[in-house]
């Protein structure tokens, strides 16, 4: 997952989203140690203070922890990770439904199309 950043939104928020996505999708697993601020900042091409701010935000949400001896780790609370995953999935669905409604589709037509696409994608 690359560090692709939009130019018009705060950078730290986008970093939060990317790290969150990496945790949810299992690139960083529950209980894993995270790379250091400097490593991640260099990788993403962003200011270390901005990466620090993103980490602080993730700590506030309980998704990552700072441990005195071993740096930062991903939470072992898998329920929390799943609930974030689900809220991200819902967000995607809401966007999808609003786009489809813009295109003039009804609820039943949308479900039919989804089933059809799922069949084709098998």
């Amino acid at each position: 997952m690359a560090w692709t950043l939009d130019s018009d939104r705060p950078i730290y928020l986008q970093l939060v989203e990317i790290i969150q996505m990496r945790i949810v999708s299992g690139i960083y697993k529950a209980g894993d140690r995270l790379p250091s601020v400097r490593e991640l900042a260099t990788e993403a091409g962003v200011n270390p203070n901005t990466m620090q701010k993103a980490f602080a935000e993730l700590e506030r949400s309980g998704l990552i922890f700072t441990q005195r001896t071993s740096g930062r780790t991903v939470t072992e609370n898998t329920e929390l990770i799943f609930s974030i995953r689900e809220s991200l999935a819902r967000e995607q669905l809401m966007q999808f439904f609003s786009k489809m409604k813009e295109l003039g589709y009804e609820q039943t037509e949308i479900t039919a199309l989804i089933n059809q696409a799922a069949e084709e994608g098998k």
Partner: protein
Amino acid sequence: MNPLVEIKGLSKCYEGKKMALDNLNLTLPRGRIIGLLGPNGSGKTTLIKLMTGLLTPTSGSITVNGTPIGIFTKSRIAYLPERTYLQSNMKVNDMIEFFTEFYPDFRKEKAYEMLNALGIEPKASLKTLSKGTKEKVQLILVMSRDADLYILDEPIAGVDPAARDYILRTIISNYNENATVLLSTHLITDIESILDEVVFIRYGQLVLYNSVDNIREHFGKSIDAYFREVFAC
């Protein structure tokens, strides 16, 4: 901690001309990467030359680490001028030796590491290097110092995009919480993700000093887009 740079009531008037800097007040903290932005002729280079002691102010004062600009502050400031001064018959490695002797804070290994990463031959003669390569060498010499303040005047203007990325990453990985990097550029899009804060100046006066994320949050646009709006012609 005390601020790194304190600028108070700074003015510079060139003979018989208008004010290049007009009562500028600015305090810069440590541990930041700060963009100095403004249209052509806004006073950026004048400010930089005053901070490096190449010009003397008409009025006002600048201190770095609490010390007025002078010989001592020069030993703590690493400066990349807008134009290259590498015109001699020296080789790249001679230049590194020269810097090692001249600056106690110069890290030779760091310089060679960067030369290697950018594929620059240390035995090459400076006058045979292209303009862009010369700029890279000069930036390497500046970034290899362990200074408190790095002042970079248009550091990436003449180099190719790939080297630009490397240079920006060098600035990030070189970052330490006691030092500040102040850099002026017109290539805002390329650098805005590595900046903490930006200083906008125009007609020698401070227009704005704020953090990149505050500006993006508040105005919903990039620094580049915001600059175009503030300084629209």
